[in-house]
Every structure is written in structure tokens, then in C-alpha cells.
């Protein structure tokens, strides 16, 4: 049997796809920004040398790294409101889970990058009288960021794709909109293929740029 492709019927739904893609980008960028902030704080806590603080940070990381994002979304949307007695908007639940989820991974990437810098670098900075802050910002971080970059970009690419899960709590992202279009047109092949192509259209150029940045930053090595 031959399937007759027909993308033309999708044209009238183009604005739905575009709106969905826009939300996907918003959730990705938003959760990356919050996630970086969370990751920095958690990383600092883990490296603080203060046991209680480090334990709490570790506890958070393990909770969010060891449960699926889908489970976290469902929990924040359906379970958490019962716990606190306040209903939570699905957009808030989505942004909250996405940020906490990626923050746990970012913290580990930051920590790994900082710890990968040899002790001698910190000592050399200290030996010329640098304060711990100067040593961290001028000597350790510039080198650590370079080492973190591939893992950071990789995690962010995964994050972009992970946002598709927010559709299960009715956030109208790209995946959600593709399902809507499918239900209107009964054209799953076209609807979901367009969705897949739109994900690729955004991510492929980004991964290329990432590779290029990585190559450029290797100059001094």
C-alpha cells in the first residue's frame, strides 16, 4: 500500500506549530537560565566544605537525578499542590520541574569541571598572593569552563528535547501542538514528521556552533 503524503493540509496549522516551537524555546531558555543559577549555588554548596550544606545539596541532586523528568512533572503538577494546599499552574509546575531537573545535572558538570583543575593551579595562584575569589574567577573558572563546555552543551541539547514532556501536563509546546494538529487532521505521519523536523531545525545548527566554539577554545591547550 502506498501512503499519499500531504503536507498541504498542515499549512493552515502553521501558527500552532510556531506557537508550540516558541513555547519550547521559552521553556528551554528559561529552565537553562534558572538551572545555571541553581547549579552554581548547589555546586558552591557541595564544594563549600560545610558538611550540612554539602549534604543538603547532594540530597537534592540525587532526588532529581534519580527520578525521571516525566515523574517530576507529574509530581509537581498533581502531587505537590496537595502537599502544600495550593494549586499550581501547569506552566509554573513545568518551569519548576525543568529547572530543578537540569540544575541538578549542571551542578554536577560545574563541580566536575572545577575539581578537574589540578591543585597546582590553585597553589600557583595563591603563591602570587591571589585571594581565593581571585584564584577562582581568574585562574580556575576560565580553565574549568573550557572543560565543562562540551558536557554543558550536551545537557542543554537534551534539555531542549526534554521540554517535549511538558505536553503531558497540557503546556502547549511543540509536541503538544503536533498532537493537536494530528487530532484535527488525522494526519499523524505529517504532523509528527513536521514536529521532528522542527526540533532538528533548531538543534542541528546549535550543535554545529557548539562544536565550533569547542574547537576555538582549544587554542591555548
Amino acid at each position, binding site marked *: 500500500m502506498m501512503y499519499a503524503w500531504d503536507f498541504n493540509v498542515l499549512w493552515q496549522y502553521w501558527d500552532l506549530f510556531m506557537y508550540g516551537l516558541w513555547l519550547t524555546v521559552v521553556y528551554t531558555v528559561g529552565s537553562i537560565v534558572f538551572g545555571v543559577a541553581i547549579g552554581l549555588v548547589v555546586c558552591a554548596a557541595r564544594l563549600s566544605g560545610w558538611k550540612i550544606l554539602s549534604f543538603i545539596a547532594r540530597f537534592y541532586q540525587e532526588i532529581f537525578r534519580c527520578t525521571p523528568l516525566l515523574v517530576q512533572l507529574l509530581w509537581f503538577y498533581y502531587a505537590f499542590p496537595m502537599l502544600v494546599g495550593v494549586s499550581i499552574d501547569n506552566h509554573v509546575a513545568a518551569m519548576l520541574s525543568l529547572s530543578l531537573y537540569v540544575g541538578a545535572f549542571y551542578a554536577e558538570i560545574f563541580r566536575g569541571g572545577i575539581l578537574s583543575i589540578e591543585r597546582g593551579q590553585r597553589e*600557583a*595562584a*595563591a603563591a*602570587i598572593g*591571589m585571594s581565593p575569589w581571585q584564584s577562582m574567577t581568574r*585562574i580556575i573558572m576560565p580553565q574549568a569552563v573550557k572543560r565543562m563546555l562540551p558536557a554543558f552543551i550536551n545537557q542543554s541539547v537534551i534539555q531542549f528535547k526534554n521540554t517535549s514532556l511538558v505536553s503531558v501536563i497540557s503546556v502547549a509546546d511543540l509536541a503538544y501542538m503536533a498532537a493537536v494538529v494530528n487530532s484535527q487532521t488525522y494526519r499523524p505521519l505529517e504532523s509528527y514528521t513536521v514536529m521532528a523536523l522542527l526540533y532538528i531545525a533548531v538543534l542541528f545548527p546549535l550543535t554545529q556552533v557548539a562544536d565550533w566554539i569547542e574547537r576555538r577554545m582549544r587554542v591555548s591547550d
Partner: protein
Amino acid sequence: MSRTANMPVDDKVILHGRDIRKSFGALDVLKGVDVALTRGEVVGLIGPSGSGKSTLIRCLNMMETPSAGEIVFKGRRIGRKFRDSGDACGIGTLRRHVGMVFQHFNLFPHKTVLQNVTEGPIIVLKMSKAQAEEHALDLLAQVGLADKRDSYPSQLSGGQKQRVAIARALAMKPDVLLLDEVTSALDPELVGEVLQVIRRLADEGMTMAIVTHEMAFAAEVADRVLFLDGGNIAVEGTPDETIRNPSNERLAAFVARFNH
């Protein structure tokens, strides 16, 4: 001979480690060592590995925190904080005046040779960039590396890296320079060029403490030699009394190992 018998104790002492003890867990690496550096003096620290000589030199700029005892810089006791507090001199202040060169160079790989040397003066001493660069280029010329100013450390040989590291320490215009086995990681043919730089510093009157396994070199440049053994200063004296004509049995056995 008492350990502190010929210890110079006067106002010419710049850096003084008093009764320094250091333990790592149950291991007592330093068991109460006194060492005083007088202005212009070169002190050689020798001894078998594990004797505590590197730990001692690292205590002198608080790279290791002594378990007991104190470091005194120009008459001021060094505290435990980075900044000066009360009458205690801060660790940061100490390190601005006491430079250190490491066995493994520890150059900043993301900075050029010139930036490695100017980093301290610009960031810590708040010197202007132009002034710092002028001074740095002068120092790089002195260690024979002026043409490498824009290279990255990864493009240099071990000997060149160590000469840059010495220039980086000198850029702070230190009162004292601590050298911790600075030739131990070098290929044999590169040792000479680094020793040559240190020799000149000694001639120019730089106050230095040198941990080294180069016995002939220690005998040549040191005014005073300390032989550490098991966390104590076992023998202290001139190069003649120590390296060239050791009377102490353990020191004699130690030195003999380097003479063939």
C-alpha cells in the same frame, strides 16, 4: 650541637619558622623545626624523601598550615586569615612578599607567557598593565625568554616553563623566594639552564630557601645547608660542614648516594 645553636636571631631575619610541627593524620611530618632566613641568605634544604623538607618550605608561605608553631615575617606573626587582622599579618600579605616556584611549574595554561608574569602584579599589586608588562619583559629577558612572550605554556619545554615560573615569582618583587624541587621534573639536559638562573639570583643577593636533590648545586650556592631527617633538622651548617665533609653518619650516607 643544639638545633638552634647558630640560628641567627636579629633584625636581619626576614622569614622565620618557629617550632613548626605538621601532621597529616597520624603521620608527623615535621616534629618541631626552626628555620630562619636572613636577608640575602641562601639556605639549602636537603634530605631523603619523606623527611619533611617540602612540607617545611610549604609551611613558610602557609601553603600548608602548620599544626603547631608559627611563621614570622619581618617580625610579624602570620595569622590564619587571608587578610591582616589585629596584629597578625595576613596570609595574602605574606605571599605578596614571599614567592614560590614549584616542581611542576604550575603555569597558567590559559594565559600567554607574558600574561603569566603580569597576572600577579596587575591583579594582586594593582600595578598598571603597561608598567607590569615593562617589568615582565625585563624579567623574561633576564631568564632568556623574551622571544616567548606570546607563546602559551604548552608550547614550551620544561626548562623554559620553569624559567617563566621563576619570572612570574620575581614579578612580585619578593623579599624571599622559596624553590621547591624546581629541577626534579626536568629532563637532565634542561636542568642546567634553570640552575643558571637561580645561580644568578643568588649572586644578586636574593634571599632563598631551596629544596633540592642537586647536591653539587646546593653546595655551590647555599650559605647554609639544613639536612632534614624524619621531621627534624638533623644537621645544620655550611656546605663544607654538611655536603662536602659530612660528619653525621646518616648525612654522609645520604650525600654519598649522589656522588656516583
